């Protein structure tokens, strides 16, 4: 009744007010209930979810570097070590501001002197703007005439970029030496991401610098004295081209692999093997980083840090190479090449290369090379040339040709005599051997190897290719003759990658097989005695090892075993020993092999006038082998169109010893000499054999 009464009288304010105030109270109640409802939803229903979110996002795992693994030779001598040295590091905490870093850099500059690094204009501008007074001033200048709305609409990063541009163009950025130092330090500090550590002075900080930094620790938050290490090579650097390089702190990750490496957990300034052994065995050498879980409290303060994993030092590599023997081979190679230089026959040469392999396992005993650049006249160490330089090797490959003929049935151990008449092709110089025409009327396979008959190899190839020969007429030969010959060579490792555990191996170079729709017969005949396709010296080593060990193509390897380091730095357990690996078995029988082995033995121990390596007959224990001579022309980069380029001779040799039970197989090459005289290939092999057996004798004594 009263309610109705009020409703009817609802035209005066005074009577409406109490009711409306109650509506207001209900409104307040409703809105507050809404708040409580949403709070219940957040805190009661989803509280655990948010708690999990808090726990997740505020913990970070940071990793710390561990020493890189070392490299030892087969006798346990250290080849590659780590040389620790004092360094100055900076760790960026979560809450540090640019202006703080600016101050630290200015203070640190008094104690530390950086002699490397250069400042770009941008770096200088960054340094200039890191002073907040400067930044405010520049900001005011570049936003002059803009309304506040416009300034608001510019993103902070954009504003900063404009400021940098303005500073580079309008401000004199000539820094005093002290400022320059501070700018260099600032540049390094600002490259650190949150909680990461960078080296301000990565190597050879002086004891004085370390002492002063430690003394002023309090005013230099984040700056510390630490340890940095660089690779050292206590056995000299003759093998440095095989061992390869590690990127420096400054270089950081190599550009071409940066994304892959980042995905593998590297950080941008990590050291990583960038070439050869260091690159190939990177996962083993790098070790595993220590992991520390840090908890980040409010305002990005570090509240807690727990070492989750201590990390482990990189494992060490034990090489198959004996550094003593390696040194001997090195000096033999250098000596041989300098004697060729002294004789004046090396002006177009590429240098000299040698490799020694254990033929039974494929273990590399030594690999060495010098590279000569005819255009500059400079000689450089180039052991790696053994696997990445290819040369036309000449007659040294004839063992594979003869075994191919035997396996194909073109000749047999019992019946292998072929005519030694020179071969006449239309508009081609006569195809003959080194010795004068008519020296031999006909030759067996063994003797053909001993005197290095090219004619025998060509006739054998013609027989294999069902060729019909009429002098001075085009020879029709099977279309697949190249395929057949190369398939045979490949079985021995010639023209295919050897599979060595180093990156960057070449597979050799194959010449063209067809010309005007016809098989290049002349080239096919050249191929038979090694004067057409080009091979690496490592392939030659693999080929001769395959003959020496009875037909097993062994994968060459340079790392004998992988050994852990204990945390105190001493050697730990061996985790992996490289097992010799047979890549393929060449299908000759022992009587067929015997033909070639006898031939190779006679190359050294034969008594004929044209026996090619009689000089090596006195090597003890007695060895077998095959020499090679290839003719080619010097390609002069300065006169590429010279119609009469200088002709050159490549001298090579493969061999093994002892002949009856080979323990070492060697291959050498001296490419592009000016003469075939001088026996440089024989001398080099002799030195290598003597050094090897002299060595093992003295060791066993």
């Amino acid at each position: 009744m009263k309610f109705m009464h009020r409703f009817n009288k609802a035209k005066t304010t005074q009577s409406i007010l109490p009711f409306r105030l109650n509506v207001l109270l209900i409104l307040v109640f409703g809105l507050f209930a809404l708040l409580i409802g949403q709070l219940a939803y957040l805190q009661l229903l989803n509280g655990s979810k948010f708690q999990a979110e808090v726990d997740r996002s505020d913990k970070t795992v940071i990793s710390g570097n561990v020493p890189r693994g070392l490299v030892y030779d087969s006798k346990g001598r250290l080849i590659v070590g780590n040389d620790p040295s004092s360094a100055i590091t900076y760790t960026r905490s979560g809450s540090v501001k640019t202006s703080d870093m600016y101050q630290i850099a200015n203070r640190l500059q008094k104690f530390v002197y950086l002699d490397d690094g250069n400042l770009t204009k941008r770096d200088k501008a960054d340094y200039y703007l890191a002073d907040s007074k400067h930044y405010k001033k520049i900001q005011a200048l570049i936003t002059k005439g803009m309304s506040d709305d416009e300034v608001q609409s510019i993103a902070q990063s954009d504003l900063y970029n404009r400021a940098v541009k303005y500073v580079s163009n309008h401000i004199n950025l000539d820094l005093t030496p002290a400022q320059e130092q501070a700018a260099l330090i600032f540049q390094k500090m600002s490259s650190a991401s949150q909680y990461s550590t960078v080296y301000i002075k990565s190597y050879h900080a002086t004891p004085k610098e370390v002492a002063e930094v430690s003394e002023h620790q309090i005013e230099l938050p984040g700056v510390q004295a630490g340890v940095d290490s660089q690779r050292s090579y206590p056995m000299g650097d003759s093998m440095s081209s095989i061992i390869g390089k590690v990127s420096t702190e400054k270089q950081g990750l190599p550009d071409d692999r940066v994304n892959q490496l980042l995905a593998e957990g590297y950080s941008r300034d990590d050291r990583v093997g960038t070439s050869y052994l260091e690159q190939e065995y990177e996962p083993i050498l790098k070790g595993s980083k220590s992991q520390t879980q840090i908890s980040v409290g409010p305002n990005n303060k570090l509240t807690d840090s727990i070492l989750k994993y201590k990390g482990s030092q990189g494992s060490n590599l034990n090489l198959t190479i004996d550094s003593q023997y390696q040194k001997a081979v090195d000096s033999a190679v250098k000596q041989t090449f300098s004697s060729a230089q002294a004789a004046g026959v090396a002006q177009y040469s590429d240098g000299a290369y040698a490799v020694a392999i254990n033929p039974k396992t494929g273990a590399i005993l030594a690999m060495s090379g010098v590279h000569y650049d005819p255009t500059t006249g400079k000689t450089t160490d180039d052991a790696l040339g053994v696997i990445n330089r290819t040369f036309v090797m000449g007659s040294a490959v004839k063992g594979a040709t003869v075994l191919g003929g035997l396996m194909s049935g073109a000749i047999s151990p019992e019946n292998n005599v072929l005519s030694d008449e020179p071969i006449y092709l239309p508009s081609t110089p006569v195809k003959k051997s080194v010795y004068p025409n008519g020296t031999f009327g006909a030759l067996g396979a063994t003797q053909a190897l001993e005197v290095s008959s090219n004619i025998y190899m060509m006739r054998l190839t013609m027989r294999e290719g069902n060729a019909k020969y009429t002098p001075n007429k085009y020879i029709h030969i099977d279309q697949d003759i190249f395929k057949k010959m190369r398939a045979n060579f490949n079985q021995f490792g010639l023209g295919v990658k050897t599979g060595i555990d180093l990156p960057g191996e070449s597979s050799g170079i194959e010449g063209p097989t067809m010309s005007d729709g016809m098989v290049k017969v002349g080239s096919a005949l050249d191929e038979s005695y090694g004067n057409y396709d080009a091979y690496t010296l490592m392939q030659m080593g693999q080929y001769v090892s395959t003959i020496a060990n009875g037909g097993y193509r062994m994968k060459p390897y340079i790392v004998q075993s992988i050994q852990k380091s204990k945390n105190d730095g001493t050697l730990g357990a061996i985790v992996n020993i490289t097992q010799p690996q047979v890549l393929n078995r060449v299908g000759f029988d022992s009587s067929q092999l015997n033909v070639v082995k006898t031939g190779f033995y006679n190359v050294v121990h034969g008594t004929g006038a044209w026996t090619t390596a009689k000089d090596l007959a006195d090597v003890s224990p007695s060895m077998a082998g095959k020499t090679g001579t290839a003719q080619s022309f010097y390609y002069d980069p300065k006169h590429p169109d010279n119609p009469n380029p200088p002709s050159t001779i490549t001298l090579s040799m493969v061999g093994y010893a002892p002949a009856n039970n080979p323990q070492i197989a060697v291959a050498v090459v001296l490419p592009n000499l000016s003469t075939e005289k001088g026996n440089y290939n024989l001398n080099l092999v002799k030195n290598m054999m003597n050094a090897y057996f002299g060595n093992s004798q003295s060791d066993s004594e």
Partner: protein
Amino acid sequence: MNVANKRSNQNKDENSRIDYGVIFSVMLLALIGLVSIYVAASHDLRSVGPWHAVISQLAWYVVGAIGVIIIMHFDTQQLWNIAPYAYWFGIALLIAVLFFYSRDYAIKTGAKSWFALGPLSFQPSEIMKPAFILMLGRVVTTHNHEYRHHTLSSDRILISRMILWSLPVVVLMLLQKDFGTMLVFLAILAGVMLVSGIDWRILVSLCLIVVLLGTLAISLVATDGGREVLSHIGFHAYQFERIDSWLDPSRDTSNNSYQLWQNLKAIGSGKLFGKGFNHSNVYVPVRESDMIFSVIAENFGFIGSCFLIIVYFMLISQMIKVTFDTRNEFYAYVSTGIIMMILFHVFENIGMSIGLLPMTGIPLPFISQGGSSLLANMIGVGMIMSMRYHYKSYMFSGNDFQ
């Protein structure tokens, strides 16, 4: 004996004139505020220690309390007389701030609404709030005395008068780019309209219009085409970003939604009982002022948050009770304005903290750090106190308001 009795009577008299309910609620809020500021300041890296922040806030409370006592002694006539002066003084300050706003502050926050005098900063719109409330109360009261009975046409005049008096404030707020504070004034206006006796039909249709406009605005903001239209009108990208982060706080937690997401994490992880006093492991930017609720919710959990809301409810219901008790029409409008002011601040601030509403820069009354907003609220409290203090003079029988 007689003298003593008289004095005791006088004391009793004085006691009954002071609204201890309101004082108690405000003191509770002050305590919660000081504790929260202590927690916020001790977890955030800053140049001054937590005690410094607490003591300076306490100092503002003392200043505010003095303000309350002064205002309490004004009676309705004096307040009535002051209203236009206060209003125009406030408008003058708002115009002045357009020219003399603190440049540093504008760069930091984007709002041109602060004066800075040395270390002191001060927001004139805070002074404008109580002045506006007084003026609105006076306008409505005058109107209702002119037109004893509400008709649709008289209501229309009333509404246009109210809007006319609000318009300068709203426009000035827009010029200052202080959208949040503008909403406070609109909320006050809406509250006073509700109690001013305007006919239901008008109120309902106004409500409908607001709802319709709101829906339209949200649908514009939520679609790309709509945004294009809005940006032509002059809205800024950051305003859209705020809406985006409100609609989906976990989408972009590193940039636009960082503050909100940190805030939600802090509040959510408080769970039922909270992490305990001074236990905070989520960093929330500016949590000493606008984001102070996250501190309370993280430290004291759902229970603590509900307690805070109940205290606010207690304060508001005390205020309404005073209004009922005093039965003065002018006071009723003023207290409604103050209630709306506090209600809107609380609802918007907590609402944005818990993801119910988009982010705006509005402090939590009596709790957030900052002098000028505390002063505005304390002036409001002072005016409420003044009702109880003087209500005997307006005691009068009957159910109706005077």
